[in-house]
């Protein structure tokens, strides 16, 4: 299985080098379908979209690459490059404190590493408690300290779970409406690659807050979320 994935990745790279960006993208999409969730995969898919001129989709994948690895400097560079070429000079979507912490923690260690660390410390705690109970007496402060440390590490792991509420316009133009139906009043027009923070959704409509505080309903078919839901 892993060999097949490695082979598929090599094929995609060869296709990309040959300028067959669409085929390369399809190969990478197969990897994504095979549950590969590596930052480098999303970075490469973003590259394919850039070469195909689909800047909105490219932004989605560069943002996704950074969600899974905030230290991916190549993805950050490519995203900055892309933003310079996007037509809407919108302020970046608002970032909550929890988002900032999540990125900071993932920048230190991957989520799973935080989890394994927490489990290890909790396992030590359990052993200490058992020894204290059934073996020779032990000062309670030792297991208490490891308990706190383990829970703190678990909390860090939970916060660092990749999540993103950012949505990106992948259509050439997307009208924002005051109400979630096409006959509502049009309040804003955004170009491809514009991003906003998803507040809620209603059927086929996304209620999105732009970086400058404006809110509007957009057709969900024209927008793509960086992550469809918080994933481990």
């Amino acid at each position, binding site marked *: 299985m892993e060999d097949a994935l490695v082979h598929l*990745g090599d094929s995609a790279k060869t296709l990309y080098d040959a300028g067959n960006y669409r085929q390369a993208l399809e190969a990478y999409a197969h990897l994504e379908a095979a549950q590969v969730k590596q930052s480098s995969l999303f*970075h490469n898919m973003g590259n394919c979209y850039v070469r195909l001129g689909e800047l909105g989709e490219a932004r989605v994948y560069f943002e996704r690459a950074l969600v899974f690895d905030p230290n991916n400097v190549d993805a950050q560079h490519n995203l900055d*490059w892309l933003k310079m070429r996007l*037509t809407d000079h919108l302020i970046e979507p608002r970032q909550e404190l929890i988002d900032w912490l999540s990125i900071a923690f993932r920048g230190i260690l991957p989520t*799973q590493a935080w989890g394994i660390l927490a489990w290890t410390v909790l*396992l030590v705690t359990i052993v200490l408690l058992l020894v204290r109970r059934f073996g020779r007496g032990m000062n309670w402060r030792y297991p208490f300290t490891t308990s706190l440390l383990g829970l703190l590490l*678990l909390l860090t792991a939970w916060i660092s779970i990749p999540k993103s509420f950012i949505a990106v316009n992948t259509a050439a133009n997307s009208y924002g409406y005051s109400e979630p139906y096409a006959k509502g009043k049009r309040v804003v027009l955004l170009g491809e690659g514009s991003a906003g923070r998803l507040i809620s959704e209603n059927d086929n409509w996304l209620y999105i807050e732009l970086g400058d505080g404006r809110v509007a309903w957009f057709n969900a078919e024209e927008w793509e979320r960086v992550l469809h839901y918080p994933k481990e």
Partner: protein
Amino acid sequence: MQKERKVPVKKIGKHILIIGVLLLSLFAQGQDSNGSINASASRTTVGLNEPFRVVFTTDIREGSIQAPNFDNFIVVRGPYRGQQTQIINGNASFRKELSFELVAEKEGTFTIAPATINIRGQLRRSNTLEITVKSGVKRENSLSEKAKNAFQVDILTSKKEVYVGEPVVMLYRATLFEPVRDMNIIQAPNFENVLQQQLDFKQEQRIEIVDGKRATVLDFDKRLLIPNKPGILGGQELKIAGQVQVPTGRVDFWGMPLTKFVQDVSSAEIPAVKIKPLPSPKPEDFSGAVGSFKVVRELDKTALNGDESLTLKIRIEGSGNFNTISVPDLIPPQGFDVYDPKFNENIRYTERGVRGYKELEYLLVPQFKGEFIIPEMQWTFFNSETGDYETVLLEEETIHVNSNVLSARDTSTLAPVDKREVTTIDDDIRYLQTGDFKPFVDLRLRRISLLFVLLTALAWVLQFINVKRKGPSSEALASALEKKVLKAFAGGDEARFAIMLNAVEQRIMERGIAREAISSDALEMYYGEERTKAIRSLMERCQLAQYAPISIGSTQQLETDFKALWKTL
């Protein structure tokens, strides 16, 4: 010197005497007054729009006359206040009056309520006046009759039939056949469910021949009406009062005819205007505009360089309710900085209606090179000419920005060439990232973490639960003790007697008897008399043997007794 002083003193004394007598007589007269208040009218039968005078008089010095509410009448002039004091042959009289000039609002017989005066808390009332108002009544004097029809007033409306929300311009026009001064509106039409606004305009007058007579035509007021409910607008009356210059028929010393200004009133009813409802259902995006409109979007260019700007105008023009509508906002196009718009308007209120335009003028500055779309716009209004709703669609337009704006801006900040700084010609994305792709291993972080938390909690709970430890059985302990004692005796251990004594005591204590109670009756109650004796004997011999040497035979006897007793303990 003394004579000169006496003369003025005598004169002053005379004056004081005269004033005192006058005041006394006046006071006496005032006391003699009957204290009544009287109402009178110049005519009790008057024509419609014929001014007449109402006077309230009293001889009471105190207080002031309070006029009644003149229901069904309009005060054309007044109030006028006056008072006079007369002394005839030593008899002083006082009179105070309050007068008004009135005109009736409609035909009929009306009663003017009494005027009142308050004297030290006591209210005195005048008589009431009954006034009959009829049209076509001959006026009271020739001058008043001459003033009649000296001017007339008309109301002109821009339309006879409008829709709800459609504006109607109402013009007040006066036609003067004689010189008239001090014209003023004493009653203006008042409408329900109609937004009425007085318009600023320049009064104009011109000479025209009306009904074969030369007349001055004066447009003196203009109002805008916007009905907000269907129905009929009409019946309301406008009344104008003015002073007409009327010849008296006499001439002055130089033979010039003498004239007099006589108050007169003219009235006009607003012509009926039918207000029709807007058809239902209204479109959801109906802007509220009613009339005949055109929406225009103008771009001064569709192709420009990066350092140029673009002017975009959105204009509503035509006729209709401009006062209550606004120009649709521009949906900000991508790729441009959009500045706050400038607002322009030119609206004319004429007998033909409200015409003109309203306009928003935007300045757009391009941010990037490329093709950009000015988004499409829709605006829905009700066309009063076709009687239907119309939606104006302004389609998308494409703007071409030719030179790269960013490059143009960067040029000004580039360092001089001789500094030889490294300049990026153009940036590009970074290449693909390599590495083995592996499927995501789902560690089930949440579930396993929950399991660890629960286990830790359980381990903590265990710390507080008292678990009874399972130790060796009583028989095993007894056997171990016995072995220990026999081993000590077999090996000739010096402490063998102490070991035996301890073993016996420990065995007794395991039965629940305290060390202190071994010498008491408690031991006897548990083991019986015979065994208690044997136990005490054994213990005493062990104690003695610790301090005094005993024979080998006694030692063997002690060991034998121990073995026999131990089984019964």
